[in-house]
């Protein structure tokens, strides 16, 4: 039930519409999503979407750092095995 899916904001439909909507691309599937909870969202940013509402942005910098940290552990393990 608490499933939320990441999607890329492609178009903000109408700046003054209520509720404020955006077109969000989920790996090729485009859906209209309400963006009232993230007023400062920009085209090209990723959002987590739940029941038609964007709940938050996905922080690309944090995501990269997390994956990098895991890869660094992998590197250490590989070196140990050599």
């Amino acid at each position, binding site marked *: *039930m*608490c499933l939320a899916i990441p999607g890329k904001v492609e178009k903000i439909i109408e700046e003054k519409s209520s*509720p404020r909507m955006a077109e969000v691309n989920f790996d090729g599937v485009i859906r209209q999503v*309400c963006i009232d909870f993230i007023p400062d969202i920009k085209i090209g940013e990723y959002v*987590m979407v739940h029941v038609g509402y964007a*709940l938050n942005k996905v*922080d690309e910098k*944090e995501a990269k750092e997390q994956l990098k940290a895991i890869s660094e*552990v992998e590197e250490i393990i590989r070196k140990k095995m050599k």
Partner: protein
Amino acid sequence: MKFLDEYRDADKVKILIDQIHSLKLPPINIMEVCGSQTHTILKYNLEELLPSNINLIHGPGCPVCVTPIDMIDKAVLLAQMEDVIFTSYGDMLRIPGSKSSLMKAKASGCDVRMIYSPLDAVMLAKDNPHKKIIFFAIGFETTTPANAASVLTARKLNLTNFYMLSSQVLIPPAVKLLLDSELIKLNGLLAPGHVCTVTGTNWCSEISNEYKIPIAVTGFEPVDILEGIFLTAKQILINQYNTVNQYKRVVTKDGNLKAQETIYNVFEVCNRNWRGLGEIKNSGLRIRDDFRQFDAEKNFEINSVTSNEDQRCIAGEILQGLKKPNDCGLFGKDCTPIKPVGAPMVSSEGACAAYYNYRSVLKITENE
């Protein structure tokens, strides 16, 4: 899919599994609170990869599963009224009530519709002015901002035919109830990442301090879950009890303030009955009096429902982590996803359905 595929990567899973195995842990119980996390654990068979002394306990974090039976009975009564289009999220349709379900009501001719978003229900109300549109609002803090926003949109559109049946619940009081219970000893928690997307992580830090228990705010992919387990187990080993945020790419300390404001603009905290857990003080959300024109319970006569649960079902014990689904005599025989007896067999995030769909027959037979 970006932000999903990277977190399902087999090499990264292997690194984290090796890291967890290197910890040399005593036997510990870690509860994943959220049903979506349970689903991932079973789908990817993560329990099999973990050291056998880590016991994962599946928590009550499936809003479909914890909706009390009297709310289902009320929903069926509302759906049976004249000129009503009854709407809800998909899983709710198949939850058995005392005598019927929304799906059976639909089969007998009632207009019951599955919707993707509460905004769909508002648009139905706009497009069908001569019908009463009733939306069955369930959910935790992840879903309640959207439910609240739909009421605000209905008001903005001056709709007089949109109603909400609210059975919404809050996660922190349920987590505290489980931690207060003497029936089960939890050593660590994986907090629900999408609830925390809205609420932030301060309530987790408070629980960590109050109950001296480590918590990892955790995402929903295999890499997230394993990293959450690692971050929790590592603390258990050295008697630390902090809240750490594994799901930083989405969750911030303060959460989404705009979403929180929207929830409490429309709803107020109330006591709420949870299926399997009983009434928990201040664990629910009801519609504020300012918005009573949208409250189905205040506008229709449905409050004298008498409900009866199937006594053979052990959903209550499963939702508290006291028993596993395959401890139930009905599991896989009299209770299946096609013909469910209890709610956790209906929702794909319910522990029973996840066990039924993903656990091998061999494993279940071994446990019998």
